[in-house]
């Protein structure tokens, strides 16, 4: 039985449909690791808030899981500014600070020096580390992370992603992110939203197969390289060729090497897959 099922869900705000999954059913199965991606305003956070019943929606959501088995971390996690770190820890973890599990967690999340500080004095990264520690303390079966690394510097982001990787191997995970490399590291399924609509929901493997996507080969956008048989997507600075299979990949790379054109290669690149699916849906694919 799925942990969560969404059926015919839609959210309307001020006469505008901000999430439109009316003809769609989404099942979140135990063990799934789902990366939810989409541009700003595509409905990612709204969908999370529907799952958590934090906003009004139409349609049906079945939640076959208890509150205590769900761990949730949002992009902005508000704490009472008047509380101290040690106070929120003892409240959420429901044990003394001297407890060995707390001491171990403080060390693991590098929070030892912060315990006597007021929560209002913590930086964004410190607050996120503290929240992850509190979210995972009771070992929830379903973890939901909504853009938790937004606004963090590169090092903080990397350390948080490493932490999540080590913590979630045996759990069900829903992660919303703008960073494709995070999705690549943490998810095995993709849920792509655009303008409130579902563009795709499947395993990364299946999506690549459906869209005949074997690898991505990127070159500088301004470099002249013609190959009419190849599909490609463009970003601000790059032209990314999408190969269908190993044979095509080898041919392209050989030609690029022959023409002395520098390129980067990435197998099953999620950013390229996302851009392709999105543009294909918008019928703007070249």
């Amino acid at each position, binding site marked *: 039985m799925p942990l969560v099922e969404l059926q015919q869900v839609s959210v309307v705000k001020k006469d505008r449909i901000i999430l439109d999954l009316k003809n769609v059913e989404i099942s979140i199965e135990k063990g799934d690791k789902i990366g939810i991606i989409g541009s700003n305003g595509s409905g990612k956070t709204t969908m999370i808030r529907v799952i958590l019943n934090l906003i009004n929606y139409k349609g049906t959501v079945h*939640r076959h899981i208890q509150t205590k088995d769900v761990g949730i971390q949002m992009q902005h996690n508000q704490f009472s500014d008047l509380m101290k770190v040690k106070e929120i820890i003892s409240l959420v973890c429901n044990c003394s600070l001297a407890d060995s599990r707390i001491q171990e967690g403080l060390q693991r999340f590098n929070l030892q020096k912060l315990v006597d500080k007021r929560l209002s004095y913590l930086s964004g990264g410190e607050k996120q580390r503290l929240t992850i520690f509190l979210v995972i303390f009771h070992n929830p079966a379903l973890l939901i992370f909504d853009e938790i690394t937004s606004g963090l510097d590169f090092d903080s982001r990397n350390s948080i992603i490493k932490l999540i990787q080590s913590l979630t191997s045996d759990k069900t995970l829903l992660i919303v992110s703008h960073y494709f490399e995070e999705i690549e590291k943490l998810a095995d399924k993709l849920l792509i939203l655009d303008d409130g609509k579902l563009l795709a929901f499947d395993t990364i493997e299946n999506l690549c197969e459906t869209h005949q996507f074997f690898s991505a080969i990127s070159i500088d956008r301004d470099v002249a390289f013609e190959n009419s048989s190849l599909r490609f997507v463009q970003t601000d600075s790059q032209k990314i060729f999408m190969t269908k299979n190993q044979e095509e990949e080898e041919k392209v790379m050989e030609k690029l090497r022959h023409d002395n054109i520098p390129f980067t290669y990435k197998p099953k690149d999620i950013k390229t897959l996302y851009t392709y699916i999105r543009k294909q849906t918008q019928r703007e694919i070249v």
Partner: protein
Amino acid sequence: MRYLRYIWIELKVILLRIPIVLFFSILFPLMMMVIVVGSTGNIEIGDGFHLSDKYIMIASGIGLIPLCLVSLPVSITAERESGVMERYLLFGINPFAILGSKVVVHMMIAIIQFVLVCVFAKIVFSLTIPGGLALISFILHYLLAAIFTLSLGVMLGLLTERVQIVQVAGLALMFSILALTGGFNEYSTLPEGVQNAMTYFPVKYLMNDFINIWFTTDLILEDFVQMTLLYLVVIGVVIYMLMRKTFKFHYSFQSLGKIDK
């Protein structure tokens, strides 16, 4: 245990880290008592009792009402508006226990405040404190009045997410109640219509009729007890409905056996 911790933390936060609550709930009633009893003198009002004996009822009301109708609802709404309450819920903390802890903390402050008023009045104005059954009965009546006022505060805190609205509504209610129950002037001088209407409001009894228990004239104010219990049932139902609406997340997830982690 978690909620004892929360009560302790909340008590520290409210009493030691929010100076305005300390002022209004602890110092303001004492100040008012000094001003009123000090300016008119602690005159005898019969049967060996003095003005201070009567004024501690008013002082306790002056402390209790801002605590219950401003401090408590603002503390609930501020946590809702800022997202702190949502974060607690997402951590799996039961909203009923969060609100319950807040009520307990405010009740404790109300008791501290009343004890301080009594101790101060005993030392400065030689307050007469009844003994035995009268004192126990008075404490029980006081607690019932405090629970009623606190439940009004919880209801107010759940009605909206906007702190500004709750602040204005709480202050308006506070001043109206104090004015209509004899907090600012002698209750018997209020228009008859107002007095009749206020017989249906429990706080009126705290400010004006509890003195009969203190003076050992009555042991139980039956009208007050029955009416307050009835109000508590109604308010309890309203609070439960507001909580179901406000904290939907908590009530949304169901148990279908233990999930393997």
